[in-house]
């Protein structure tokens, strides 16, 4: 089951440059939350703070609280690795391990954890590929075909399956469909809708229509600040803040 994310007074920097200012919001469990905003508004930085990936950038710094379930991910003694195990992530460009078969790509996380029992691995690989709506397309060549031999849309679903295999509670998706054609995009969007039954999903997208289609809640970021956060219906039919309205209606700037 998914868990909620409570963010309080979150600030982030790249060296001297501040990227996020006092972000506070509550992302509800088992819902899809979209983060929208123009380039450079801090939306990707924000999700990378949730799974402690921001700190992997040299000179990057984070201050504030991100509570996942009941764990403060920046709390004393909490390891980034344990955080990332609970929070899966999918990126804009599909990045399957190039030398591995489809099967090994999905099983990689589990094997890294020392999990080697064949039959159970088989089960997890099948379940994950089913959840990622890829099973039917690849089941006959799981071990024959390499991950990178698949189409772009299939590769992205493979990456989703790989993230699901370690049973995270949260899935972060950073522009997961921006490199895909409309049919593959629709498949990913449909998948997001199915997945929220079991996971909390946060999707970063510069495509407002996509946010509208898939998200239950939407947050609008501008210049490192969270301008508005509300139900998606409200955000796209009657936003409270003028800046949100200007952005979603294309009157911005």
């Amino acid at each position, binding site marked *: 089951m998914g868990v909620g994310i409570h963010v309080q007074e979150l600030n982030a920097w790249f060296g001297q440059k501040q990227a996020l200012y006092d972000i506070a919001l509550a992302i509800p469990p088992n819902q899809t939350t979209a983060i929208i905003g123009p380039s450079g508004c801090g939306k990707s930085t924000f999700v990378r703070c949730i799974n402690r990936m921001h700190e992997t950038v040299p000179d990057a710094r984070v201050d504030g609280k991100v509570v996942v379930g009941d764990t403060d991910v920046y709390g004393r003694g909490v390891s980034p690795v344990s955080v990332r195990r609970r929070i899966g992530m999918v990126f804009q460009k599909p990045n399957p391990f190039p030398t591995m078969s489809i099967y090994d790509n999905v099983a990689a996380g589990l094997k890294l954890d020392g999990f080697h029992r064949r039959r159970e691995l088989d089960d997890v690989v099948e379940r994950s590929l089913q959840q990622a709506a890829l099973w039917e397309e690849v089941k006959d060549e799981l071990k024959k075909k390499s991950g990178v031999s698949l189409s772009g849309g299939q590769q992205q679903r493979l990456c989703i399956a790989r993230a699901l295999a370690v049973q995270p509670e949260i899935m972060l998706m950073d522009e997961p469909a921006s490199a895909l054609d409309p049919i593959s995009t*629709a498949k990913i*969007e*449909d998948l997001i*809708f*199915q997945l929220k039954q079991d996971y909390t999903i946060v999707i970063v997208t510069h495509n407002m229509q996509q946010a509208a*289609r*898939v998200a239950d809640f939407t947050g609008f970021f501008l210049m490192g600040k969270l301008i508005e956060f509300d139900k*998606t219906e409200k955000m*796209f*039919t009657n936003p409270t803040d003028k800046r949100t309205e200007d952005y979603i209606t294309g009157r911005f700037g």
Partner: protein
Amino acid sequence: MRTRFQMGLDELKQKLLAMGGLAEQAVDRAMEAYRKRDLQRCYAVFEGEKAINMAEREIDELAVDLLAMQQPLAVDLRFITAVMKINADLERVGDQAVNIAQRVMDTIKLPAAELPVDIPRMAATAAGMVRRALEAFIEGKAELAEAILKMDDIVDDMNDEIYIVLVRKMHENPTVVDQALDLLLIARNLERIADHATNIAEDVIFWVRGADVRHHVGIEESPAPPLT
């Protein structure tokens, strides 16, 4: 594919059908009230109007959300815009039922008068048009909808006939003017209900075929006589 959108469309359809059921029920109750000179049934029509108004708002809200969030195109876009228009027509059918119930309350207070007009027959035809328009919507069948367009002329003729008869009666016997006026207005309300059913049928044709047949444009008509 597009599961969330499909669920939204299904929900919109179900809500509109429920709304159609309420509008039909309102007309039936108003006519029962007329036949039985029954005040309680008039009150039931007034009470039912609240549910219709509520349903109208819910349907519009859902339709606007779907337009904003799912960016529907082609047949989906036509479906949602058709639903919004049918919604408004059904709400007006409910209003006409209320108008009829108000006239019935008025007639109940007056002494009964023998007036040779068949209001129930006209009501059955108009209500039948609403029911069939909704069937055309449920099944997505433009042919069913086309048949309804033709029925509108029948109701218009009934209305004209009732008008002529009642005006004559009022001339002959001025003591029945009040009762005759009530019936004239009820007939007028029924004629409007048939118009709304016609609009619904036109919207179904637009949704299914993408053809705008309003105001007799796009419907095959007999050729005009040659100029002499």
